[in-house]
């Protein structure tokens, strides 16, 4: 199968609700979440986009509607083109998206990860469990309202939690998060460190002027 001359035009004629998505690299389209699965199947079957590179999501912000956007990247191993599809989830409180795990087996774990970290439920997924955090963890850590340091919760194993009196605690940020400095500077300066070292857990952050 050959590369389509204009895959976006073909998709837009088949799915009139699809709109162009600003993109710096590959063809990208926004489309309604209800049509995402059909569009991906169409890309796979008609245009040989046979490889699902990634399923991920975006949290646009706590107060933004629509809050969650699911993003799919597909690639063709025969004509070597990429396409990006994005769909806004209708419900901000309990976001739902269609599964593509029956179209690409790799989507199974990608969707579990997206469910784990963003809390987006993939309808008809065969085994939608958390994949990184443990079963029963109450939060979705990549959501914008989840702090990087974490939130206090019990350890996954209550017996060990009782024995050790340990729990999941917010990590000490000490003015972090810690990032390495890029560029041609000496290695000591490039070490990961807090960008704002004016405050720590013990010393309050100074009020901004």
């Amino acid at each position, binding site marked *: 199968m050959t590369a389509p001359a204009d895959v976006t035009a073909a998709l837009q004629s088949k799915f009139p609700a699809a709109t162009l998505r600003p993109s710096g690299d590959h063809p990208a389209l926004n489309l309604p979440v209800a049509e995402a699965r059909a569009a991906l199947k169409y890309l796979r079957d008609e245009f040989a986009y046979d490889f699902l590179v990634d399923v991920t999501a975006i949290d646009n912000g706590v107060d933004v509607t629509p809050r969650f956007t699911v993003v799919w990247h597909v690639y063709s191993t025969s004509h070597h083109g990429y396409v990006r599809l994005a769909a806004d989830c209708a419900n901000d409180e309990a976001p739902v998206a269609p599964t593509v795990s029956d179209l690409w087996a790799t989507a199974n774990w990608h969707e579990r990860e997206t469910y784990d970290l963003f809390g987006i439920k993939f309808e008809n997924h065969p085994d939608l469990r958390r994949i990184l955090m443990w079963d029963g963890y109450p939060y979705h850590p990549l959501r914008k309202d989840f702090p990087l340091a974490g939130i206090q919760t019990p350890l996954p194993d209550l017996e*060990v939690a009782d024995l050790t009196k340990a729990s*999941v605690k917010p990590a000490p940020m000490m003015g972090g998060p810690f990032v390495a400095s890029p560029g041609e500077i000496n290695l000591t300066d490039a070490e990961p460190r807090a960008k704002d070292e004016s405050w720590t857990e013990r010393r309050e952050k100074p009020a901004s002027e």
Partner: protein
Amino acid sequence: MVSANNELAYNTKIEGDIVVTRADAVINWLRSSSVWPMPMGLACCAIELMGVAASRFDIARFGAEVFRFSPRQADCMIVAGTVTYKMAPHVRRIYDQMAEPKWVIAMGACASSGGMYRSYATLQGVDQIVPVDVYISGCPPRPEALLDALIKLQSKIKKEPSAKQLLASA
């Protein structure tokens, strides 16, 4: 006529087939000379741990070459790497399954303090769930640092009141 004893070492001709010593000295000598490690390799520190066991650094020189993947047969858990909260209960369970006496080495920044992982997923120091005997700094530590930690652990074992503990537990 009594002559001074000029013998500096044990001499069977003088003392017969008897060695006089303290129980602690013998027990601790046995324990410290054959520490069987339990390699709790969780991240990149485990690669250095393998280097320690291999020929160049050769932890066998200190009697600790018998890496046991069963906690029942191990004396010293070497926590080498990042301990996530998901993994932490399993580390504790494996520690609980080790037979007494047992020791723990926290190898590297992550096991000692969470290291660079100041995030929601990482236990900030394995000493929150198991008692640690020796901490090693470094990210990852050099193999020499682990050998140094083992020597420090051996000197710690040699100071333990082992005979008293054994009689108390009997």
